[in-house]
């Protein structure tokens, strides 16, 4: 056995590691760190790399050659012997929590070269990026469950994977970690570039080239000047109380309409999806009313409700309600039949099935519905405020148009965009909070 001098081939090793099953998901930075922490070791044909029962501290990645891997006694495995080729990993006993001895014997079948990594340093490197680190650990776990049936060992791996999870950051530290990771990814910069291109095109079209039909529009500089001005020409800016009154009134209307729609729509949707009979009574009416655009309800809303506030809230509610109820119903219908059957087998009553299967099972669809519902709430709010109402962002936009305060129109629109985005994000956050199982599932799939 001899330790080879470090060559300049680290990049090749990184590429090799990237091909290797457990490490496919790992970022290049981390792979380089792993290669950096490893040593290159050569073995002659017939060399025993390690014996069964030896103390295990290192993990091996085969670079070249072939290695025979024979499991030791007690490893009730499907295949006792395997021949490993380049790119394959062996010696993962080094990663087990309290299993610091070799479970197998490895022998070089020909002259071999290996990358040798100390198990503890590997764990430390993987902890730098806990999310991918966890995926790597769970892949090791899969490899081990595939090879072995000895329950204690399998349990060992899983507790290890679990430990890595509980060691994840929490609270503010987690938020900071995610933020710094986000800042290191290209995403924020692409986003800024996108914004810059959009505003740049607007600026050029309106203020520089003064394209036909565009010259009527307020340009970004005049809007920004107005928005940030202490004494706005047209009366609305960040420094006027009227601006905040408009925002407050609109947010309040959306909040009331959206909450009412949620409180009534989710139960209705759950019952529609759960009871075939109820659906037969109610759903045809529901489907008949649903395609009627909210704007068509405006006259009726004004006749039905007194005052300026209630008709607007009613219209917001109506649009939200359909979206929430329909998606909730689809959510219940999307639940796999076997979950119902399993819970009846396990002795659950009808109410318990409703509580433990129908409600959580429909949750992903419900939150999709609430996202849509929030969108249509703002949509119908502005429509309603343009027709009736006093104050509110929709009213501000429409009123600015009739009184020829063009920059104020843009201020109103941009504010709607921003407030709408924040409310949608709040709904998404609430969904993630209530559906940890889904967040974790998606994270493992690499989609989060």
């Amino acid at each position, binding site marked *: 056995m001899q330790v080879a001098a470090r060559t300049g081939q680290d990049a090749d090793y990184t590429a090799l590691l990237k091909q290797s099953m457990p490490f496919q998901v790992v970022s290049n930075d981390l792979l380089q760190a792993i290669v950096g922490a490893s040593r290159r070791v050569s073995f002659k044909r017939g060399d025993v790399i390690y014996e069964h029962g030896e103390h295990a501290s290192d993990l091996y990645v085969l670079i070249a050659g072939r290695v025979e891997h024979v499991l030791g006694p007690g490893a009730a495995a499907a295949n006792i012997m395997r021949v490993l080729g380049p790119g394959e990993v062996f010696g993962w006993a080094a990663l087990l929590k309290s299993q610091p001895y070799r479970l197998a014997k490895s022998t070089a079948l020909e002259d071999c070269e290996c990358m040798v990594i100390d198990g503890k340093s590997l764990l430390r490197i993987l902890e730098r990026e806990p999310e991918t680190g966890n995926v790597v650990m769970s892949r090791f776990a899969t490899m081990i469950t595939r090879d072995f049936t000895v329950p204690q060992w399998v349990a060992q791996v899983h*507790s290890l994977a679990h430990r890595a999870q509980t060691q994840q950051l929490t609270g503010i530290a987690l938020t900071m970690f995610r933020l710094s990771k986000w800042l290191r990814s290209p995403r924020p910069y692409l986003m800024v570039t996108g914004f810059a291109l959009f505003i740049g095109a607007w600026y050029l079209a309106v203020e520089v080239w003064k394209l036909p039909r565009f010259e009527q529009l307020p340009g970004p500089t005049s809007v920004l000047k107005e928005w940030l001005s202490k004494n706005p020409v047209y009366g609305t800016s960040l420094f006027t109380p009227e601006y905040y009154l408009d925002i407050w009134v609109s947010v309040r209307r959306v909040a009331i309409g959206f909450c009412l729609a949620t409180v009534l729509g989710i139960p209705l949707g759950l019952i529609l999806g759960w009871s075939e009979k109820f659906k037969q009574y109610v759903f045809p009416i529901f489907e008949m009313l649903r395609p009627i655009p909210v704007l068509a309800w405006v006259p009726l809303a004004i006749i039905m409700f007194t005052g300026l506030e209630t008709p607007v809230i009613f219209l917001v509610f109506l649009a939200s309600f359909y979206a929430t109820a329909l998606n909730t119903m689809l959510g219940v219908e999307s639940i796999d039949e076997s979950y119902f*059957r399993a819970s009846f087998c396990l002795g659950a009553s009808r109410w318990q099935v409703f509580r433990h299967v129908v409600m959580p099972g429909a949750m992903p669809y419900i939150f999709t519905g609430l996202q849509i519902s929030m969108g249509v709430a703002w949509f119908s709010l502005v429509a309603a405020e343009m027709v009736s109402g006093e104050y509110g962002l929709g009213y501000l936009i429409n009123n600015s148009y009739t009184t020829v305060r063009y920059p104020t129109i843009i201020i109103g629109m941009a504010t709607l965009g921003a407030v709408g985005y924040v409310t949608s994000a709040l709904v998404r956050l609430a969904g993630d909070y209530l559906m940890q199982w889904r967040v974790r*599932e998606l994270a493992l799939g690499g989609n989060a």
Partner: protein
Amino acid sequence: MMREHVPDSRPSAPVGKGAIHIEQVVKVYDPDGAAVLAVDHCSLDIRPGEICMIVGPSGCGKTTLLNAIAGFHSVNSGSIRLDGEMLCGPGKPKAAPGPDRIVVFQNGALFPWKTVLENVAFGPVMQGKLGRKQAYEKARQMMADAGLSGTEHNYPGELSSGVRRRVEIVRALMNDPKVLLLDEPYRALDSLTKSVMHEALLEIYYKNPVTIFFITHDLEEAIFLGHRVVIMTTRPCKPKKILDVDIPHPRDYGVLTAPRFRELMDETIEAVHEEAIKAFAAGEKEG
């Protein structure tokens, strides 16, 4: 070929609860007015505590039989009894599903929104047999026995499919069922995981000997696990041949290379192949 006499060397299933007596069961499906005979006067006795493997071509109606025992479907005539008590029969076409007969599904039915521990404890908590705390205690114990410690607080979506299947079997055993009904539980697994699962199932079974009604169309699986292998005819479904697997339990994977195992395989392959050809000719939908 039914074996009439019972030699002493026969692998005797442990005597206990969980005898299923299926008598002259008929099931007709009637989609769009076209009556399809799925199960035709099927009679079968399943001994208490045995692993009874049901083999047949895809879509032959074996799942229909399982659904009738579990209480998901009604039967048109005939009766099914469990330890003498009528599950379904004249005047009661559909059995009520209950924790004495628990199904483990083909694609798994662990609730993805509950942690593994909550899943395993689900039965006793729902039935009010144990308080939540005691149920969790028992669940932890049973999971430790099955080598599943450490996964309690994971969600099923975070586990490998092999581990999920084992958790599901533990969830069933938490209820002290008389019968486990397994509907091709390992169909979606790769062959390596499958072999691990078979030994794990036997290990759990030796500790908790319940009657196992196991549907498969993997002959190797059937002979490796079963005390008896029942080969079903293609639709309509009824037993064509019952094979006693006279290889003593406890078994491990060494059995696969035993000469007796190959003999039994040969004996089964012919019968099954014949039915598979019939099913293929009839163009049955898989399922």
